[in-house]
């Protein structure tokens, strides 16, 4: 078993149309670097200078990594990682 990574539609061009790819356990930032090796170009879309881009949300088993240890969050076999572009201005609750 590996780590499952769900790829958002705008990035699937870089993963040959795959919605889900596999990665090895470790920190989120290592996982992003690993994705970059497999799918060149994806790394800079998600991160910049070792940090996840401000308008990219990453969830580990449905929890936002900013509630965990951000880029240093460790994922293990069987974990599910989702990469979700934040809707700009975007938020979970547009209520006002």
């Amino acid at each position, binding site marked *: 078993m590996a780590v499952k990574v769900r790829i958002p*539609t*705008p990035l699937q061009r870089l993963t040959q149309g795959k919605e889900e790819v596999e990665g090895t356990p470790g920190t989120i930032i290592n996982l992003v670097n690993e994705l970059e090796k497999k799918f060149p170009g994806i790394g800079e*879309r998600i991160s*910049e200078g070792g940090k996840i*881009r*401000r*308008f*990219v*949300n990453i969830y580990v088993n449905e929890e*936002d990594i*900013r*509630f965990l240890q951000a880029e240093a969050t460790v994922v293990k076999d069987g974990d599910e990682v989702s990469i979700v*572009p*934040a*809707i*700009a*201005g*975007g*938020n*979970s*609750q*547009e*209520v*006002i």
Partner: protein
Amino acid sequence: MGYVSGLKCRECGREYPVDPIYVCEFCFGPLEVVYDYKKIKKVLTKKNIKSRGENLWRYKELLPIDGEPQVGLESGFTPLIKADNLAKELGVSELYVKDDTVAHPTLSFKDRVVAVALTKAKEFGFDTVACASTGNLAHSVSAHGAKAGFKRFVFIPANLEASKIVASLVYEPNLVAVDGNYDEVNRLCSEIANKYKWAFVNINIRPFYAEGSKTQGFEIIEQLDWKAPDNVVVPCASGSLLTKVWKSFKEFKKIGILKKLDTKVFAAQATGCSPIVAAIKQGTDVIRPVKPDTIAKSLAIGNPADGFYACQVVRETGGYGEDVSDKEIIDGIKLLAKTEGIFAETAGGVTVACTKKLIESGKIGRDEITVICITGNGLKTQEALTGQTTEVHYIKPNLAAFEEILKKIQK
């Protein structure tokens, strides 16, 4: 003929033509409307503005439309109230309330942004408009959309209170109640927006929609006789309104309408959802998302996408941020009502209570000119005041009964 030259990513600077798009294809950053200010400067003068109708379109050159305004022709230009009673109560010399509790047609500042969004939707050729919301935005899209002849889809979480539903349903939109929480409603709406060619005002029309907030700032300047205040206090949900109010001030400076601008911009949030103010207080740009728990539901965005930019504005202008408890929010609503006769929704209570704290801590000077932005009407969130108001005096229909109660009242 419009004055917009294109869209530009706020993060990486990539440029895009004017289209119903909202994120940078490369880095997912938000897109911002770019104007040709040289051209605007020649047309948009004080004299020209004053000659136009008293509505938000009097600043149309600084709004992202190509042709003439088509929706919300009577929206905007709400009163700027000189709040002497509240000023006295708070111990400051000059205080103004920008009163969007009387915005046309649905009593919140959302009438501004939706007027702009739906005009743009017409220009793009959409026949259907949509949004995900439970409150002010749903009401405004339903109402403006009815008048403008759009098909309307309004998405809400299924567990919403009946009173909020009626204020949308009366305009007969297609109201879709989704079995899920706000997150799920929004996720669904993004998928729908990808598949159907509809104008989702807060998704694919967002760059244009958000620009409508600037009209609140333009009006403040005009109503202060073309001067900028020393301080402006703005409630923050996504942080968009705060950044746009500041943008409006800067634009008026840029086109020469304002000679001098050193306004400090202050952010107001509820303690139960204060990711922006927390970042300001900690002196960082990093917004840590929170799970909202506050009666100020219209401000309850735990992961505010414009939060970073709002923090930058506050820092750049030398302002600050403050947050207040639910109790303080109620007290804020009541204080505004009993001093100025204005009944604001919970977000207004947040703004008043934060302003009080900012004055007490000296962040806002007592002899300075301060404007507070009140963004929605209290009639919409009456349940927040249940058990928190004074009591009704019940009497029998005779004079003796009345005089008995009068004695108690006059004690």
